[in-house]
């Protein structure tokens, strides 16, 4: 039975979000339909659904609201996964033999092919080694941070006591629900993972959290890199010399993560030392996803389909991460679309940005009203 626990946890954080992401595939085109894009979209969709579920339970359920929240969200997450899978099967059946867009890589061997393939393979291998090293170190290293007495304890409280921000994390005992700060429900999500998998919430946050949050953050930067470089790996069935661009980019990002700890304030230090805290997830997951979506938005008009839904969902995720996340996400999206509007001379971009920040505006209104 104990062996089922990690399996269940892996299902909850990898398989179910990916399946949920399949719901968003109709919004993607051939340039951005990679598996990690589908996963990130599904991750954001799941998070947005959890945000709504958690807030509803906090407001409407008086007795042990987390019990209701975890049960309700398990159903919702499962439904999203099933609908995503059903949609993918339906699309595959209807698209027939022309569904696959992958081109068979030419087996013709020549110097250009061999050197660019080897270069790309070496860089991806180097990236894998750096990430493996990072994850092993994160598992075996502790950074003492007093904020964990709040965040981790809130997650353990929800899992052990069924409470959602109605028990004092530092000392215990009841307290009035501070809905303003409780809007950042990220600790409840870790509690959900703990409740369903049966693993202690503290372990889920501090030991297991970095093992999937750091890779998710790197996947977000992978989306940025893919958005910048496009698909220049394979042209007419041949690996091109541009195949090395993306792995080079990712190697650099992973090295910057290791060496970005120049002060206790940097985003890189936050994701490496306190990945499970919402503010770290905002800085290193929400921000790169927003940047990737802004790059999508800046491409041709037909690319816009996926950008606005992704920004919409990421805005909700940002609010879930930290009370200030909604504000900073809105600033980034509006500033980004404003600059893009001036550069591309296309007012629709700013309009897309304004539509995208509706969740953040509602969050900020709620935050202000609850003062």
């Amino acid at each position, binding site marked *: 039975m104990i062996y089922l626990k990690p399996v269940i946890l892996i299902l909850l954080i990898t398989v179910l979000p990916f399946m949920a992401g399949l719901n968003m595939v109709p919004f993607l085109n051939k340039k951005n339909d990679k598996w990690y894009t589908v996963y990130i979209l599904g991750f954001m969709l799941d998070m947005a659904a959890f945000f709504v579920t958690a807030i509803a339970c906090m407001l409407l359920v008086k007795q042990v609201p987390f019990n209701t929240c975890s049960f309700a969200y398990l159903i919702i997450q499962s439904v999203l996964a099933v609908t995503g899978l059903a949609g993918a099967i339906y699309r595959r059946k209807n698209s027939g033999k022309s569904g696959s867009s992958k081109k068979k890589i030419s087996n013709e061997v020549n110097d250009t092919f061999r050197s660019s393939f080897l270069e790309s393979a070496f860089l991806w291998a180097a990236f894998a080694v750096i990430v493996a090293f990072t994850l092993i170190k994160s598992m075996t290293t502790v950074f003492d941070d007093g904020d964990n007495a709040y965040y981790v304890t809130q997650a353990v409280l929800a899992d052990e006591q069924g409470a959602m921000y109605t028990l004092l994390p*530092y000392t215990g005992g009841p307290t009035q629900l501070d809905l303003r700060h409780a809007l950042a429900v990220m600790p409840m999500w870790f509690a959900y993972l703990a409740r369903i998998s049966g693993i202690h919430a*503290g372990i889920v946050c501090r030991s297991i959290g970095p093992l999937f949050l750091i890779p998710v953050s790197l996947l977000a930067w992978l989306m940025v890199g893919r958005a910048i470089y496009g698909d220049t790996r394979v042209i007419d069935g041949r690996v091109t010399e541009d195949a090395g661009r993306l792995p080079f980019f990712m190697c650099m990002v992973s090295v*910057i993560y290791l*060496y970005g700890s120049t002060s206790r304030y940097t985003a890189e230090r936050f994701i490496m030392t306190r990945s499970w805290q919402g503010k770290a997830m905002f800085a290193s997951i929400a921000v790169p996803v927003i940047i990737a979506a802004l790059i999508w938005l800046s491409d041709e008009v037909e690319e816009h389909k996926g950008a606005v839904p992704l920004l919409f969902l990421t805005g909700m995720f940002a609010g879930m991460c930290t009370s200030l996340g909604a*504000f900073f996400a809105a600033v980034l999206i509006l500033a980004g679309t404003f600059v893009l509007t001036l550069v591309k001379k296309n007012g629709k971009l700013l309009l897309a940005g304004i539509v995208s920040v509706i969740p953040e505006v509602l969050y900020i209104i709620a935050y202000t009203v609850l003062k």
Partner: protein
Amino acid sequence: MIDQMINYFQMNIDTVIAYAGSGFLMALYGLAAAYLLFTEKDKRIRALFIYLPLLIILAVILPPVRYAFVRYIDTGDTYYRFLWLLPMCATIAYASEKIFSGMRLIGITLAATAVALCGHYVYDAGNGYTEAPVRAENVYHLPEEAIGVADIIMAGEKGNQIRAAMPAELTVSVRQYDTNLYLAYGREKFMDPYAEADKLFVMMHEEVIDSCALLELGRERQVCFYVFPIDQEFSADPESAGLEKAGETKKYVVYKDAYELEEMRKIQFYYHP
């Protein structure tokens, strides 16, 4: 008003300098952005990696922005989070790929070395700007001592809420392990300018503890267990004051107030038979 704006401007500069911290990684980022400014033709990249960051930096150092932020958004020390919106990773990575595009294998070595020299290794010892990491002792990533103390206190009390008083350094950890373990005081004392007014908190950290006076204060707060450093001195033996030794770890000794525990068992909120 002008003085306030000048003060905010100075604070903004200090924020950026504090964020940059040690090393020259922010300077490397600036160099990368400057390189793109002069060489990048792609409008998307210029918009998002040059103009947008410039706009953010400009906003960060302008005094009215800090005034509005503190007035309407947050009064805490969170202004530096504007700098999280800068795409530092992507800019340095993209610029270095552009520079070394013809010789990527050598280039990645040189670029990564430059980042390593300009940055600070996260798993290295603290450098005044960051705290040092420690080796994890268990899967909870908590001090083994804290888990040992919690296990001693909660042994035989599963499902009940038990209140304890303990040294401040333990209070940040024990409730991350077991939230049924209530505390007489917790981490809020670290941030409380009036912590010295809490007599129980002060007495628990004295060099020589008066066990009888401590017990009297603790019972007012329904404290059933007391944790002391193993070398704690007492004016009188704790057991003579009414405490029973419940257990000890390498660094701490745990005493139980059996009388108060019995009283707590009568209160259904805490005790669930």
